[in-house]
């Protein structure tokens, strides 16, 4: 499309040949590293001229990659898999993941153990990793998915509202919502994600052709994100300020999330691979992914390996 044409022009004219990359980020802290890397000139330093577009969810950024509207996107494992099953996408690294404690399952109306969920209404954000977490949760606690009602809602605000009213009896909330969820009468935190022994992970995904034509981009991107991670850890206040400025995330929420919810770390380990594989299997088994594919074909870890040899360990 027209984006490509523009990219080439810039390439030709710029003397210090910066690589133009169109990046899609979601509108939460998940994409903070991108924003920091851009604002702090980290991308530029690594030879990348990044143009960031914002979408609602990670899955939207991958859809944009699929349709060639951006070159690079981000998504949690579950959404990432559903997208890479559809087109020529490559996973470049795991770059940001929520801590296990960052997401808690709250329940109300006297529910005190997982088994009590049977027959209840539960809030879910469809198409996001939230859907997988529930699936996994049912598996772990031997709850028949047919014995509960999953109520799809669009964003956490709606989930909270429905939960507050008692229209749903349980839902997962992120750190930003712990206070509000706790305040609701009869509401208790049942579990966090450690109970089901998974941690959702955020992956950096790029258009396959981009990596094929410009293999160096992967290393540059990963270096930038790693550097941005360090910056965020060192300067949480500034990063939160940026989150407010760029994304209109309330500053206190941003700070809270930076400190407590996210682990900014660029890597790709065996456990990460295993988890992707497991989710893939699960998605196929549950019909969320129609076409099986070879996961290894979808990985392009050379760039990461080149930048941080010790951060990649995979057979």
């Amino acid at each position, binding site marked *: 499309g027209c984006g490509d044409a523009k990219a080439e022009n810039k390439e030709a004219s710029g003397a210090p040949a910066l690589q133009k990359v169109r990046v899609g980020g979601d509108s939460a802290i998940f994409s903070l590293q991108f924003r920091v890397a851009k604002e702090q000139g980290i991308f530029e330093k690594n030879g990348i001229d990044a143009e960031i577009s914002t979408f609602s969810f990670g899955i939207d950024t991958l859809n944009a990659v699929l349709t060639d509207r951006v070159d690079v996107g981000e998504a949690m494992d579950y959404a990432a898999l559903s997208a890479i099953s559809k087109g020529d996408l490559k996973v470049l690294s795991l770059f940001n993941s929520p801590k296990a404690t960052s997401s808690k399952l709250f329940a109300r109306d006297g529910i005190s153990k997982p088994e009590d969920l049977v027959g209840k209404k539960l809030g879910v954000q469809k198409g996001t990793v939230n859907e997988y977490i529930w699936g996994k949760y049912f598996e772990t606690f031997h709850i028949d998915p047919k014995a509960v009602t999953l109520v799809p809602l669009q964003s956490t605000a709606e989930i909270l509202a429905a939960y507050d009213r008692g*229209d749903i009896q349980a839902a997962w909330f992120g750190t930003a919502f712990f206070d509000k969820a706790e305040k609701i009468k009869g509401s208790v935190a049942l579990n966090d994600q450690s109970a089901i022994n998974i941690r959702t992970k955020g992956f950096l995904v790029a258009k396959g052709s981009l990596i094929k034509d410009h293999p160096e981009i992967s290393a540059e991107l990963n270096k930038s994100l790693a550097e941005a991670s360090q910056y965020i850890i060192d300067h949480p206040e500034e990063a939160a300020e940026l989150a407010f400025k760029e994304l209109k995330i309330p500053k206190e929420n941003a700070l809270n999330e930076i400190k407590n919810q996210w682990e900014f770390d660029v890597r790709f380990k065996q456990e990460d691979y295993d988890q992707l594989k497991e989710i893939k299997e699960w998605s196929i088994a549950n019909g969320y992914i129609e076409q099986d594919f070879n996961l290894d074909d979808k990985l392009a870890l050379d760039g990461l390996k080149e930048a941080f040899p010790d951060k990649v360990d995979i057979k």
Partner: protein
Amino acid sequence: MRYVRKGLQMGIVSWLLFLILWQIFAMNSNQDYFPTPVQTFRGAVELIADNSLVTYVFISFKRVLLGWLLGSLLGIPAGLLIGRFKWLRQLVEPYLNFFRFIPALAFITLFILWFGIGEQSKVILIMYATLFIVILNTAAGVVNVEDDKIRSARSLGASERQILIHVIIPAVVPAFFNGVRLAMGNSFMAIVGAEMIAANEGVGYLIWTSRLYSKTDWIFVGLLLLGLMGFTGDQLLRWLGKTSLKRYGIAKETRFGR
């Protein structure tokens, strides 16, 4: 008879042309994102096979119908009163011209909070989307009733109440018929938003989830269904208007079209 047949032919011509253009267009695009009529048809068959298509259409139609009906039933008397009483008009008009620009979509969170995640909030959302356009059209109709009609009714001894019932209402029928038809368009706009709320079923839900999973053919099925439902509803409404409201001059309003 000749007209009926000709009109029919014309309709068929239109749709054939449409299918052909679609096919050509789709064949020249990436079909993952722009399915051809055939692919869309296959998508529809999938959905029909597990019975969800018919259920979805039925459910969405019910919601639209209910919300639209409530909106109209509320909007018509409100519009009549607002059009009739100048002080009320002056009081209420700023709100009307303010709220009509706040789309139903922006209210989703609040509506869940106030009305829950059940049918209620969906129907109310659709009602909200139809309400303003019906009120505005009706009120404008009332304001534009020819003075001479009201004057002669009054000098023929009609009371204010009788003027409302026997002059204003009949004279306004075309205006509110028009409003109600336009409002139906808005209902369909709202159903897509409404079914993003906590819905497990419905055409809006189909489009929404298909979007998340990038099932473009299903998105297309959803779009076509919305169009078809709207088209059918509109034709029904027009037919009703033509037959039962004929003496109020609806024929003229529906003259645009077959």
